[in-house]
């Protein structure tokens, strides 16, 4: 059974249609990408599924619970990373995690949790002292506290350098290894291509394509598409990474 089912979802903001009757489903254990340009409705869609925003119409169920009937049952079973989440000021990462543990009624070993995302040395650091990549990894860490069935990551790699992005991909893959379903939004297509099992492409509130990256590409090629420039065996990013190293580093 699908872990997320979205049926004919509509969200209107006084006159403006942000999400226009979309349907899709996510299978347990997959990494599902919601792609699209800024303003396509990705975040709105995600926040409705996360029970943070009310829908205008349509049906959504997560882990077998309807978002209308049992939002709190859903909240207990999902982990949410917001695009620009804030954390309580003036407290350390360990204290943040204890706070979230309390919010989920869970007992956690904070050092263990932090080492899941490679931040075991930052137990007594404050969130604002972290680098961009560390902040995102900490954010992901807070989504794992309740041992969720699904985690939602909203543009987790935006603004990160190539090393930090790769590092985060590894983290996301490791979450999936634990058996957790991942729903991610991004506007980097290379990221989606490497990371996602299936993607849905949104544009102006509608889903205009939905399949595995592989098949979407094949279909385009079959239709006679050709890249204008000859493909070289390496990209500038490969050059950058081979010069600066794959290793992700803390500044």
């Amino acid at each position, binding site marked *: 059974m699908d872990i997320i089912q979205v049926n004919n979802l509509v969200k209107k903001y006084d006159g403006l249609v942000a999400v226009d009757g979309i349907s899709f489903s996510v299978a347990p254990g997959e990494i599902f990408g919601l792609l699209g340009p800024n303003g396509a409705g990705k975040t709105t869609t995600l926040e409705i599924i996360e029970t943070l925003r009310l829908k205008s119409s349509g049906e959504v169920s997560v882990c077998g619970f309807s978002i209308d009937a049992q939002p*709190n049952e859903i*909240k207990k079973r999902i982990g949410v990373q917001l695009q620009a*989440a*804030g*954390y309580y000021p003036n407290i350390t990462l360990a204290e943040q995690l204890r*706070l979230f543990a309390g*919010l*989920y009624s869970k007992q956690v070993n904070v050092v263990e949790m932090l080492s899941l995302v490679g931040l075991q040395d930052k137990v007594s650091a404050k969130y604002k002292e972290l680098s961009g990549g560390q902040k995102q990894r900490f954010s992901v860490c807070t989504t794992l506290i309740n041992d969720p*069935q699904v985690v939602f990551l909203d543009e987790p790699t935006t603004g990160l350098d190539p090393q930090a992005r790769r590092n985060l991909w590894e983290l996301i893959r490791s979450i999936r290894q634990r058996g957790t379903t991942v729903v991610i939004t991004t506007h980097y297509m290379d990221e989606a291509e490497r990371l996602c099992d299936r993607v849905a492409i949104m544009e102006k509130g509608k889903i205009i394509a939905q399949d595995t990256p592989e098949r979407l590409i094949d279909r385009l090629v079959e239709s006679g598409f050709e890249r204008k420039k000859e493909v070289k065996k390496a990209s500038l990013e490969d050059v950058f990474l081979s010069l600066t190293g794959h290793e992700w580093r803390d500044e």
Partner: protein
Amino acid sequence: MQSKKPVYSQWGAMLAISKASFRSMLRSPSAIIFGLLFPLVFIVVFGFINPSNVKFDVTIDQRSDTTGELYAALKSNSSLRFRTVEDGQQEERLQKGRIDAILFLQTNPENQEEVVVTTSKASRERANIVEALIQEVVSSVNSRRLDVLFKTTPDSLRISSAQRYAMKTALIPGREYKTIDFILPGQLGFSILSAGVFGTAFVFFSLRQTLVLKRFFATPIKRPFIILGEALSRVTFQLLGSLMIILIGHFVFEFTLVEGGWTVVKLLLFAAIGQLVFMGFGFVVSGIARNESTIPPIANMITLPQFLLCGTFFPIDAFPSWLQAISRILPLTYLNDSFRRIAFEGAPLLDLLPQLGVIGLWGVLVFFLAVRFFRWE
């Protein structure tokens, strides 16, 4: 995955927020500065500078003989303020506590100048002080006369106190009402007001703005528990601050705690009640403010008038009556008044029901507004 039914505790979640918020406050300079340092600085400054400027209102019984030396001495005492009250209304005013004593000056059968002091139960402690004050005037006039006219002793002065409203007849030398006894309760009230309004407004505004609240919403905690958690930590923090102010005041500046530890408990109880009500103002402000820079002006509109008008620095009776009318509407007046009555007079809690009633009415009004204006996102 988890097959067992997870047991979720809203109270546990609430406590987790309280803990985080409390830690955060302990590390936030502004919370310490406004909650603790400012009141202490004011207490120190006013404790040292200001000699007692508390005045007592007295009126002269119309039948009095006002030609004597004693009348002149009383009249020139700077702590006594003479009020003209129409004949029939003197006792009524006294009973209502509008004046502190009626003075009747006469020459008694032994040909002594005598002042009969009538005070009321309405303000027992003030009565004690006013009697002590007059006693002091009388004895200084006596001794001056003895000095000048050594043995002649024409007519020594005598004071007697008639007690009409179940007051002790004997002249008790009033408990010394020190400046700190006036200043400290005012500072306590003001620190509670400013922490309640500014602290709450800023914290909820910034938790909303930085999406901390939104992140909380993604967890199973229910919204009222988020507010309860914050409220609990802020009240705890403020009570600790108040306790420190009271203890420093007591041990360094001899702030009067009439019933000792029990007085402290009563003070803290009122501090907590005041804090809860004033937090409501903070919620309203955080809801109205469009951005961070509009918080201080709006919060000042609430705190400044109360700072000036509610007996924080100056006694309310120093104001003209139209201004006093405003003072008597504002909640801080009643909190300050309660603190003073508890600390200096040892007022039992039941006697403070009127004060509590006004503070409670404000609570209802403010939380009604808070529910209307509070914004979560």
